[in-house]
């Protein structure tokens, strides 16, 4: 099963997220990533859902039946601009700090907070770049990490 990216335009109303996610989870499918946020149109939100579905056509039709769902577009990965944000808190000490900072800056991560024994970096990029950065930081001891969910736009839309 391959990854599918659905871009779902919805009315900004309470419960929409629950309706959408339960329509997918009803079939026992996991959602790999989901992000929701406002759009340029008032009262409309956009959900970007990344999931592995073998019946994506049927799920799209069922999502379309939801009264608060306005439009669903399945994004073509080859024509899609995709990005994700990450915050990563890593432990540092005298021996490691130079190396941590060097690796972070080579990865284009921005340091957003530094303490005595930790540093927090922010990185925006493709999921692969984020994965790579996580691997790089792992040996230094990741204290906490959070990823924001993938967002995507089709470049020809």
């Amino acid at each position, binding site marked *: 099963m391959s990854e599918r990216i659905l871009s779902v335009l919805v009315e900004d109303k309470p419960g929409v997220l629950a309706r959408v996610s339960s329509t997918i989870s*009803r079939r026992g499918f996991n959602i790999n990533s989901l992000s929701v946020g406002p759009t340029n149109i008032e009262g409309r939100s956009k959900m970007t859902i990344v999931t592995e579905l073998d019946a994506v056509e049927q799920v799209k039709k069922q999502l379309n039946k939801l009264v608060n769902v306005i439009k669903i577009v399945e994004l073509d990965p080859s024509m899609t601009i995709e990005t994700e944000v990450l915050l990563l808190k890593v432990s540092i000490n005298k021996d490691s700090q130079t190396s941590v900072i060097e690796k972070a800056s080579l990865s284009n991560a921005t340091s957003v907070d530094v303490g005595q024994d930790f540093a927090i970096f922010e990185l925006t990029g493709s999921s692969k770049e984020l994965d790579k950065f996580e691997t790089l930081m792992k040996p230094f001891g990741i204290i906490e990490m959070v990823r924001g969910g993938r967002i995507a736009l089709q470049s020809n839309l």
Partner: protein
Amino acid sequence: MSASQKKGGLFFRIKRKKDMAKDKLSGAELVIRGLEHLNVSTVFGVPGGAILPAYDPLYDSPIRHILARHEQGAGHMAEGYAQATGELGVVIATSGPGATNLITPLANALMDSTPMLAITGQVASHAIGNDAFQEAYTVGISMAATKHNYLITDASEIPQVLKEAKYIATTGRPGPVLIDIPKDILNQEASWVEPGDLDLPGYKPTLEPNPKMIQQAANLIKKSKKPILYIGGGIIHSKANNELFELATKFNIPVVTTLMGRGAFPDGNELCLEMPGMHGNYTATTSIQNADLLIAIGVRFDDRVTANPAFFAQNAKVIHADIDPAEIGKVRDAEVPIVGDAKSVIKGLIEALGDTQLETKSWISDLKEMKSKFPLSYNQEDKGPLKVPYVLEELQKLTKEEAVVVSGVGQHQMWISQHWNFTEPNTWLNSGGLGTMGYALPAAIGAKTAYPNKLVLALDGDGCFQMTCQELITASTENIPIKIVVFNNGNHGMVRQWQKIFYNSKFSASELTHDTPDYVKLAESMGAIGMRMMEKSDVEKVFNKMLEVNDRPVLVDCVVDPDDMVFPMVPAGGSNDQVIMNTEDLKNL
């Protein structure tokens, strides 16, 4: 005090006039006024703490309230009302258990596309989420059992939401909509504002089919030598039975009617093959297997029709028309998919076919021959135990008028669909998709409320009847003279049949006993007339007596053979090419 006395009193008329003139109304008054505004004449329900404010103005309203004995019963009553009329059925319940008891009827209405509105009370806004007394997360619980639902957060929303809810419930593919209203919102004051235009950017049902698709469908039909019209509940929702009749008879296309589509095309017409599928008749099931084209309208290729889809109609191309795009291609890919309302689709097909003459003569005569070779059969011995099919056929002979027949779920349901002659839409009410035992009695009450002058028959099984039998009290006290036949085989008959066939006759937990309860005494204790029939010689006599009673509900305890089985049968997941016709065929299973 009777309902008419209650509504007609001078005091109430004056009080009501005053209420109407008030600037501000309570949320509860807005609900009742909103329902009146939607031309709701009857609601079914059970009161309770959180919904109490709504029952106060309801008392003064011309809307008739039927007090059910359980919210599940109230929900099925609303469904029966809606299935019989094609109009919105309304049910009211309180928070917590009141609302959770409604989940079964809501899920049932969703499966069978029945337009229904449920209004539930909720604990006060500030208490929501705090595990307050009688609190349940109704919107969350009912999300998967409704077409849409609402939580009201301000009383001023009520008129508009009611209008929206009715629109969503009754248009497109109909279904149940629930509105949950916290108690403080029912008490909150707001002005009545005439509901405006609906703003539903995500809800735009496609009614008119794409003309290109209609043309493609017509081209396939023109080439077909063995077409079958595969017809379901969508025809009835769309009120397209006359158009269907024209399409079938003008172009000589045989018709199979699914469980939900019975009555959409008249039994007895030479083109009508009646019900296909798991317990369909041999000819209907086999006609689909032999067809070169399925014209499927308002059907969803349910597993009870298709059995294993891989073996279903392997020689046929498929035209699939439905108002719900999610049904098309769900089970079977269609060569011609058509999204649209059944009535418009059929009208379009008739026009596109023009004066085409289909060469279906030999196909029809083949099917006719098959019908006479493989009829539905039963063996009623003179002195032997009663068989349901025999009793049904006798009952229909004695019934002079067109009856509304309401059924439970199981053997008796299949026998009714097989042996009763349905000639009109909306005269066959049953729980097709969800298979809800206990549906018959309350749904019959709902139907009879809608049509007090029609003969309404609840033909039920004993297992089903025991699930909602307290509603017999509702029928008596609310003066709703339905007629109930309990086919009493002392067992969960269909469970027993499966245990016999698939579980080596190990009858685990399927026996109920014939004589407990005593249905005659039970009926009498609930204000109805009770009668019993045991053998062939009783049938005519007892049914004639039953049909004479019109001032109160009548129940007939019809004691039948527990070992009788429904045939034909195609086991779940089997192939429709292998129809089991009788117990002899079972040996080869």
